[in-house]
């Protein structure tokens, strides 16, 4: 039986796959925001019987950050960028997509073998967490643009968030806050840096950064 929580988790994976196949930055930023929204709703649905003000506030904060602030920052940062598409990535979109399918499959195989201390809300939780983290890392490694890499970090963070959900509502609060802060600073700095690099060098191809060195 497919529950609402399952449905949200399926959306999370579909976003993962879409992120691997998409070359348009704008669409990518929005779809990752959608992933953040789905995940922000998840604790409210999954743990609604133990809902406290604190978890509600946490979920609300996460929703606001991932659903509104991050996309706004990123969209603003990339707005001036003349090239709205990702440059030719290190791994092509079709190959990325196939790799993504393989990752999801492997995550399900691994997830079924990973013992959990207590039953999770959904048996999809662990596979989704694994595949989202790995696909986030895959995005960071395989893409050229700084903005896409930031989105990879966001996907990675979403994966960690799902991992947190496997434990319970209260426990990960601190962890989640820490990670969220990290990513927030990361996105903020990256957003600024991207704009400045853009203004300075007319390009935000991160692989060009290797040329920035003191020695000839």
């Amino acid at each position, binding site marked *: 039986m497919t529950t609402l929580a399952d449905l949200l988790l399926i959306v999370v994976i579909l976003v993962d*796959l879409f992120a691997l196949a998409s070359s348009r930055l704008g669409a990518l930023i929005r779809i990752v925001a959608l992933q953040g929204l789905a995940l922000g709703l998840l604790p409210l649905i999954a743990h609604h019987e133990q809902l406290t003000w604190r978890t509600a506030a946490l979920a609300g904060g996460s929703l606001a950050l991932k659903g509104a602030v991050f996309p706004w920052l990123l969209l603003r940062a990339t707005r001036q960028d003349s090239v709205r598409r990702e440059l030719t990535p290190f791994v092509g979109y*079709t190959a990325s997509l196939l790799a993504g399918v393989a990752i999801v499959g492997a995550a399900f195989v691994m997830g079924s073998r990973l013992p959990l201390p207590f039953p999770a809300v959904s048996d999809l939780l662990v596979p989704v967490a694994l595949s989202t983290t790995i696909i986030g890392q895959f995005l960071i490694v395989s893409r050229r643009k700084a903005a896409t890499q930031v989105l990879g970090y966001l996907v990675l963070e979403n994966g960690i968030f799902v991992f947190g959900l496997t434990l319970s509502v209260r426990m990960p609060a601190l962890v989640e806050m820490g990670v969220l802060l990290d990513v927030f600073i990361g996105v903020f700095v990256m957003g600024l840096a991207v704009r400045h690099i853009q203004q300075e060098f007319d390009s935000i191809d991160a692989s060009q950064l290797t040329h920035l060195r003191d020695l000839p």
Partner: protein
Amino acid sequence: MIAPAAVFLLGLALAPLTGGLIVRVKSLAAGRTGPPILQPYFDLARLWRKGTVRSTSTSWVFASGSVITAAATAAALALVPAGGVRAPLAFAGDAVLLVGLLALGRFAMVLSAMDTGSSFEGMGASRETAFSALAEPVLMLVVASVARASGGLSLSEMLGPGLPAAWGLHGASLALAAAALFVILLAENARIPVDDPATHLELTMIHEVMLLDHSGPDLALMEYASALKLWIFGALLAGLAVPVRTGWEALDLAAFLAGTAAAAAVVGLVESSMARLQLARVPQLVVGAGALAAFGVVLGVRA
């Protein structure tokens, strides 16, 4: 009790209607009235009565190509259930035979195109084989996903009375399969965003360009085979996505026909609202559908 043979004859008779319906939806979306819905029938009848002009480059392959394509696609139709109503031929593994017969029809069409020695037709043949080589695994994954969810090995079982229960248990998996099937419907039937059935710019075409040297009854057979293929995909999609299995066959059949009409309407709306994809992006679309179907299978098998 509706005889399975009636399902087959119904498909043979109604297949060209789908194309007419799509054109009508597109016209309405563009604010025009458009040609009559029955126009495809008139076209087929007109072509059928004409004489043929065959290229001097062609051999027996061209002469038999259109016949084989039409016959293979018609034989494939015999395996397709009309929603909950069984198909005349139904056995374990008939879905594989269906995919194979469609591939036979395509193979004959590709060889006919290459038999003319035309570079345009060679180009269409090359693209058609490339995209269908990618579409075939996706289609088989859809079959696998639906088989897993419904527990049947033949199409008539898969889409049979157990389907509503399967939607309840494996709804996500079946929805992903249906989405992938829709993309394959677009790709395999030369619809926008993969191919444009209305274009007359040879360099951008896939399916139409293979038929440039077909005329008269040869062209009619090829066009009819395309209509049958569109009907087959529409019927599979409607059978999967409209799980109305009341047990009253007339009602089920009506729901199925409404489903195919709806599928045609959706195709028409997609065609009205989207642009053709760059050719290099088509594989991405098909592989994306494959990713959906594969994810559907993964969701379906979790214990």
